[in-house]
């Protein structure tokens, strides 16, 4: 079976993940991903009809809190480690 990963797939995935890759990296990823996917083929032998997917860790219950006013003690935290700020605002390049 031909690998579902081609050079075009690599370019598409790099765009989805917002990664600028060098030609050498693209070449390497093509090889590695093809090899890894071959290994995954073994899963097609497992009968999973009627088996529900496990989507989390354990004790899956939704956690709610009261919709009440509360003091945020962490306000402003993280500002120091934000790359650019101005007058207390976080600064990013124009979106449009």
């Amino acid at each position, binding site marked *: 079976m031909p690998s*579902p*990963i081609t050079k075009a*797939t*690599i370019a598409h*995935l*790099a765009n*989805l*993940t*917002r*990664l*600028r*890759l060098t030609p050498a*990296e693209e070449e*390497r*990823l093509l090889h*590695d*991903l093809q*090899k*890894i*996917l071959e*290994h*995954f083929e*073994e*899963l*097609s032998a*497992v009968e*999973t009809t009627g*088996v*529900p*997917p*496990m*989507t*989390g*860790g*354990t*004790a899956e219950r*939704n*956690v709610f*809190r009261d919709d009440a006013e509360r003091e945020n003690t*962490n306000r402003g*935290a*993280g500002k*120091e*480690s*934000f*790359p*650019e700020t101005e007058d207390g605002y976080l600064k*990013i*390049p*124009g*979106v449009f």
Partner: protein
Amino acid sequence: MESLSTLTIKGIRAGLEAKKFSALEIAQAFFRHIKETDKNIGAYLSIDEEGAAKAARATDLMIASGEKLPPLAGVPVAIKDNMLIRGGSATAASKILESYEGAYDATVVAKLKAAGAVILGKTNLDEFAMGSSTENSAFQKTKNPHDPTRVPGGSSGGSAAAVSGGMAVAALGSDTGGSIRQPAARCGVVGLKTTYGSVSRNGIIALASSLDQVGPFAKTAEDAARVFDVIRGVDTMDSTSAAREYGPDLLEPKPENIKNLVVGLPHEYFVDGLDPKVAGAVRDAIKVLESLGVRFKKISLPHTKYALSCYYIILPAEASSNLARFDGIRYARLPGVLGSLSDIYFKQKGLGFGAEPKRRMMLGAFVLSSGYYDAYYDKAQRVRTLIARDFEDAFRDVDVILTPTTPTPAFKIGEKTDNPLAMYLSDIFTIPVNLAGLPAVSIPVAQKKDDLPIGFQLIGRHFREADILGLGHFYERVTASNN
């Protein structure tokens, strides 16, 4: 003072109470040892002498004024560098976070501080905890204190090496597929992967959120229990954390309860590819446990062989989503990354992430992408259910499951860096536990002094850390008295 390499939490408490040494003297002795030793090992990425001295002095003041000491008073600990400490670096061993500073204390860090622990510094890891050898760090390769030509295992290799090399009494690591147990086995220390939900993940740089758990490294099972008891508990900042009470048997295991445990030996973990030295060491450990009166039973975990594929679909899928946030707009930006929003994203990620995160983000994007989701991601989640059910079925017959922790002892630095699949096989015995959310501990097999360390893994029922740590504790007691 007794040797730093054998000092335990209990030993520190006894020494402090008897005024044999002060907490500050201990901290200073550890920093002296780190400065002498760590240039050859590379366990730490950063140390914090000032912060440690402050914490140690606080303990010394409490002793002077006769106050009751908190459980980890004066205990020097190391923290894996993917956990936040307010105002300190948290690089996750990635260039992309080199200039990032933690904005708050991770819940586990806050709990350690409140318990009186003295945080010595932050330890090396594979970038974003992706790897099995600590060779994937953007900053340095950590070496195994038992043989510096070999890897310490990974991804929490820095924490394992720090405890193994006498550079910390205990340490925190994170375990997504074996990243605590596997380096613990390779460095000859105890490493506990905690039950999913038992310890808050708030303030931990996420790798795969349904698999990640924080846990301790220590020299003994008893010390691991003490650290676990401090860091565990429900946290409103982590909605997957569970409110569970633990009984007194966590810290004080009773021999009569432990010897009544039935231990399962899954034949899928004792396979042909197993290194003969590992197989022999684990057989020796089983004999010791039999002498305690523990009963063994052969069991089967039939879907074990699919765990690796299942894991390497689920993990990259979650990681590609978790790592998307390091876009150069938030957290930190590399020097020279300029331009439009889109330019910044592409340049920052292209320059900032190393080869393994890139590989996994690409793989994750693929298994989640339209047309392939059902064949890979959805299939893997269903297989995950089957793997979890295997354990559920087994735990109807046995209380604990024993396996080797790793298929081989520590390998040579550079041996597997060119072959990602061979590297992934390092975690073949530890991955199923994360998929099922169970607790498991790696206990070093008692061996001759010059042998490379080998660990055996004890897997328990959900929230039954007491069973595996208790069994480990009595194993250590018997082997210590035999020597």
